């Protein structure tokens, strides 16, 4: 009796009938009543460890229509690649989804009542695979450089209405998500690396001259008010800078860029950040003789701070012309982050690099699955005239 009652249920089963098939029993594999190409059904292969991210809605695909899509978790970026197969991969949905796929008649058909049927909805031509990649973060710099925050912005911010803001090229966090192929964490650290700041809901980089102005004003006030380099009171500093005409967000940003908050809740100016800032400002005028540059630089450094040439690793390069050494700005942060383009720029700058010079310009490169030795092997030719000589790297 029970057998009879259960018969109709077991008559129509999909994936379960295949997966739970008992020894010495069989199931009929048939084309689904809606069998077809079903291009809207995609198979995505992924690591077990990424499953929770996907199942809890923490994953998005990002990219412009003309770009290859990437899949982003909260912290990482993956390229999505289609890998085809010449095998016939018959895709069988579970029974609960047969209805979902529109197939109800199988159960009613009299000739199927007696046996198990697993309907094939499509033959999958292949699967999408994920490969971890470096975020495509250069785009971020390009977007934010379109319209840096300048002195004019500070004056006009009150008058700009929403309409005007939409017309100028300004990007909110979600605009950047739409345009930059990077995970949220990577985007956040990219913004930090660019010293970007969120002003009125839009992410901006601040014009160098404007930053120079506010830092000089801060240092000026430091002397005037007899503040300590290591014990700046946030409210006091911001209050004074605001009365000098700088917006509150920019004053706050200035502390963040050139200082760090200590455990005691006061701000401490970062010696290296401040010194590097002045070196950059001086060299913006062009190449200088080393001795002249050093004199000028030391003159700019605020009292209580100590500049050293080591701070300029990855910021400047030197040239020997005759007996004179010249120094010029060559900033690692102005270089592309994709390795092929980075090396091409480096070898355009100089055909041959010694390791000590090269290292600051490549140490930030990260390619998932490739070590820094691997990078050098791939993009450079290493020559060593004698065994004890320094190796020299040139383009491959």
């Amino acid at each position, binding site marked *: 009796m029970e057998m009879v009652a259960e018969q109709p249920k077991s008559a129509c089963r999909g994936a379960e009938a295949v997966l739970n*098939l008992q020894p010495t029993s069989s199931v009929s594999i048939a084309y689904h009543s809606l*069998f077809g190409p079903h291009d809207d059904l995609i198979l995505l292969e992924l690591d077990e460890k990424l499953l929770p991210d996907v199942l809890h*809605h923490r994953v998005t695909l990002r990219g412009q229509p003309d770009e290859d899509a990437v899949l982003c978790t909260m912290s990482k970026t993956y390229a999505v690649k289609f890998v085809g197969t010449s095998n016939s991969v*018959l895709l069988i949905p579970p029974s*609960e989804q047969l209805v979902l796929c529109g197939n109800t008649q199988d159960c009613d058909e009299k000739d199927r009542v007696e046996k198990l049927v697993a309907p094939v909805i499509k033959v999958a031509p292949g699967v999408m695979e994920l490969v971890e990649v470096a975020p495509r973060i250069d785009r971020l710099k390009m977007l934010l450089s379109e319209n840096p925050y300048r002195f004019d912005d500070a004056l006009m911010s009150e008058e700009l209405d929403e309409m005007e803001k939409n017309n100028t090229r300004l990007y909110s966090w979600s605009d950047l998500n739409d345009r930059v192929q990077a995970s949220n964490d990577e985007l956040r650290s990219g913004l930090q690396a660019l010293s970007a700041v969120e002003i009125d809901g839009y992410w901006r980089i601040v014009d160098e001259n404007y930053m120079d102005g506010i830092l000089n004003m801060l240092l000026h006030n430091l002397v005037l008010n007899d503040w300590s380099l290591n014990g700046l009171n946030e409210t006091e500093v911001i209050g004074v800078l605001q009365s000098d005409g700088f917006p509150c967000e920019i004053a706050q940003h200035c502390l963040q860029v050139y200082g760090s908050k200590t455990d005691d809740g006061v701000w401490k100016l970062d010696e290296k950040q401040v010194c590097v800032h002045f070196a950059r400002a001086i060299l913006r005028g062009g190449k200088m003789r080393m001795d002249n540059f050093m004199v000028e630089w030391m003159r700019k450094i605020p009292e209580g701070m100590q500049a050293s040439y080591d701070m300029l690793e990855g910021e400047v390069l030197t040239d020997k012309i005759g007996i004179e050494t010249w120094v010029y700005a060559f900033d690692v942060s102005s270089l592309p982050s994709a390795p092929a383009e980075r090396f091409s720029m480096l070898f355009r700058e100089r055909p041959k690099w010694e390791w000590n010079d090269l290292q600051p310009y490549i140490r930030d490169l990260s390619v998932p699955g490739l070590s820094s030795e691997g990078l050098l092997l791939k993009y450079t030719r290493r020559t060593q005239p004698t065994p004890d000589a320094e190796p020299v790297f040139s383009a491959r």
Partner: protein
Amino acid sequence: MQIQVKCNCGEQNCPEWAIVELQGVIEPQPAFQDRLQNLEIGQLCRASSQTYTFTVGYHELTGSKVPLKKPLLVLKKIRHADEEKVELEVIGIIRQRILFKTRPKALISRSQPGTKERVSAPGSLVPK
């Protein structure tokens, strides 16, 4: 542009789909070429605990159930009619497949048509 990957099933309840994979192509007889819907492909039989056979026409394949190294998610592209927005929804997961990687073995033909169920019985003939 962003496409949100959605999932309504939750971690524990993601419905499991099945894959039957074989080398080469299944070729229906020309008469059925344009109306494959509901057509039987063949009989899948679990001959013993390890061995599966798949009988398609007069050919028999021998294979086994293999867990996938990495799971596959079944995603469905959902296009919202009113706007350009596209979403992907996870509708299933695949963790194992019945894989036939051997060349098919020819079965001695039977005279009576329409008795495919019985044809599949030879699965028990030579389980390796």
